[in-house]
C-alpha cells in the first residue's frame, strides 16, 4: 500500500542517534505519552496530537511474502482529531462498558528509531510496541507491532505534536476481545 512506501522512504533517512538531544527529547515525549494513556489521562494525551492527526491501524492478512506484508485496504482505526476526541469523551462518560471499570494497560515503548527530514524538519519516529492489558480478574492480553509516528516540533521546538500515527499490528486475528485500548 502506498502508505507503506512512504513509511519506508522515511526509514531510509540517516538515523538520529540515541545519544543526541533530539532523540532524548523524542524518547521522553513518547514515554510521557505512554504514561498518560496508562494513567487514563486521555485529555492530556490528546493534547500531544496535532489537530491534523491521521491515526490509523490497518487490518493485516496472512499472505505470501511475495504478495506483500498483508496490509490491505481496510482498517481497525482510521481516526482524525475529532474522532479521537470522541473516543476520549466517550471514555470519560461512566458508560463506556468496555473500559468501565477500566482495563489496566501497559504501553512498552521499545527499539525507538528516529529520522529527520532536513528540508521539512519533520521527524519520523518508529517503535516496536508491546501493549499488555488485564481487566477485572482476567489474565493478560497482548498487542504487538510497529508504530510509525510523524512528529512536528511544538512551541520552542523542545516538544512535539504527533501529526500522523500508523500502527502496524502483528496479528491478523486480534485475539484480545476488542480494541478498546489506544496505541
Amino acid at each position, binding site marked *: 500500500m502506498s502508505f507503506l512506501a512512504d513509511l519506508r522512504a522515511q526509514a531510509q533517512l540517516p538515523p538520529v542517534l540515541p545519544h543526541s538531544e533530539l532523540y532524548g527529547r523524542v524518547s521522553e515525549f513518547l514515554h510521557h505519552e505512554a504514561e498518560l494513556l496508562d494513567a487514563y489521562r486521555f485529555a492530556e494525551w490528546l493534547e500531544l496530537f496535532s489537530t491534523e492527526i491521521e491515526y490509523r*491501524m490497518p*487490518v493485516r*492478512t*496472512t*499472505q*505470501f511474502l511475495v*504478495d506483500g506484508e*498483508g496490509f*490491505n*485496504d*481496510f*482498517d*481497525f*482505526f*482510521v*481516526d*482524525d482529531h*475529532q*474522532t479521537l*476526541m*470522541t*473516543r476520549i*469523551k*466517550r471514555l470519560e*462518560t*461512566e*458508560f*463506556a*462498558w*468496555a473500559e468501565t471499570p477500566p482495563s489496566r494497560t501497559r504501553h512498552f515503548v521499545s527499539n525507538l528509531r528516529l529520522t529527520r527530514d532536513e528540508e521539512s524538519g519533520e521527524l519520523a519516529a518508529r517503535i516496536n510496541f508491546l501493549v499488555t492489558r488485564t481487566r477485572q480478574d482476567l489474565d493478560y492480553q497482548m498487542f504487538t507491532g510497529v508504530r510509525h509516528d510523524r512528529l512536528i516540533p511544538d512551541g520552542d521546538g523542545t516538544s512535539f505534536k504527533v501529526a500522523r500515527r500508523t500502527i502496524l499490528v502483528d496479528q*491478523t*486475528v*486480534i*485475539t*484480545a*476481545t*476488542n*480494541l*478498546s485500548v489506544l496505541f
Partner: protein
Amino acid sequence: MSTTSQRTDSDDVMRLSSGIALEEIVRPDEGLISRRIFTDSEVYELEQERIFARGWFFVGHESEIPEPGDLVTRSVGTDPAIFVRDDEGQIRVFLNSCRHRGMRVCRTDRENASFLRCPYHGWAYKNNGELLTAAAESHYEEGELDKENLGLIPVAQLGVHCGLVFATWDPQAPPLDDYLGDMKYYLDLIFNRTGGVKVLGTPQIWDVETGWKFATDNFTDNFHVFSAHHSLVELGMLPNDPDFASHGTMVVAEEGHILHLTPGAPTDEYAFMGLPQKLRDQMPEHLTPEQVAMAEKVAYSAGTVWPNFHWLQLMSSGTLGQRDVPFLNLRLEVPISPTRTRMWSWLLIDVDADPEYEKASYETYVRTFGPAGIYDQDDMENWEDCTRASLGPAARKHSLHHTMGIHRPLDESWPGPGRAYADSYGEMTQRSWYSAWMRFMTSGWSDAQDGGER
C-alpha cells in the same frame, strides 16, 4: 469430545448424559432459555454435529473473489474452507485439508492461484478441486491411487443469493433457496436494493471469550442500544429517548430467520436507509413497489440468517457533531470452544456509490463497529461477562428471560412475508431463533424447518 447425549425414542426427548432433557431447559415459547446451553461442553459438542455439520453457513460474498484463481480462506460451520473462483469462473468451496494426510492445503488468507500444492508431500489440486498430481505416483501399484475421487472435498451444497455465498456440509440439507424461503424477500430488500453491493477490502477478524450464542442473541436485539451504548447517548450521539429505536417492525421470516426494520428520525435524511439520492433512485428498478415503500421507512435494520450470519444496516456517526451516515455490515460468529468465538465482520458498499459516500460510509463503520468501534466494543464486553456469569453449577440451573412480546399480536397489516410484529423492541426474534436451535438439536432435516413459533 464425544458424548453419550442421545435422543431416547421411548420418551422422545433429547437428553444430555446427566439426564437433563433439552426440552426441559430450553422453552422458547415461554421465553425461558437455560444458561447451561451457552457454556456447557456437551451441548457444544452436540452443536458441532447437529448444527455445524448440517446447517447452511455464510462463506463470503462473490465480490471477494472477482477473478479466476482468486481465493480466500474461510470457515464453513467450524471447519476450515477454501473459497475460490476456479479458472472457469465458477465459485467453489472446499474443505481446506489435503486428501492424503490432512494438511491445510491453502495457508494464506488470500491469494490467486491456478492450482494448490500441498506442502507436505506435494499433491497438487486444480482450483476446481481436481487432483492433478499426487506424490510419488509411480510408486502406487495399480488401483491404489484413485485420483478421480481424491480431489479436494467440496461442500455438499453451495448456494448464492444476492451475491451472498452459503454452503453446507450436509447433502440432506434442503436447497438454499428452500432454506432461505421467505427470508429472500428481506435479503433482496437489503442486498438487492440498488445495482448491487460489494465487499470493501478485507474482513476484520477477532476472538472474543464468549459462548457463541451470547453474541448471536444480540444482533436483532434493538432495545439493548439505549443501555449498552449509553455512552453515545451521554455524548448526544444517540437520542436521549429509551424508545428511540422501537418504532419499527420485527419479522420472523422463517423459523430462525429473523430481522427488524426500524425508522430513524422522521426526516428525509433517515429515509431509504439513509442512502444518497443517486442510490435511492435505483431502488424502483430493483425492488417491488411494496419493498420500496418498506425501504422508505428503514434507517436501521438487523437480520439473522439462522444460525450465525447477520446483516447490520445502520446509520451512525463515529464523530461528535457529525451527521449519521449509513453502512451495511455483515457478521459471522465461528465457535472456537464453548467459551470462545471468532468474530468476522465485512463492510459492503453499493457498487454505484460515489467515492465520497463510500469513504464516509467506510469511516463511519470503522469508527463505530468492528473491534475498535465505539459501539461494538461494549457489546463484546457484555457477551464476555454474560459468559463468565453462566459457568457455575448454580447459574446453570437458572434460565435467561426472553419474554418480551410473547403475547404480542401479529401485525396483520404488514405487507411482507413472515410473521410481523409492530414495535421493534421485543424478543420474538430471539425466541424464534431458539426454536430453530431446538429443531436442529433434536430433529433431522425433515422436521427441522417446518412450522413457526407456537
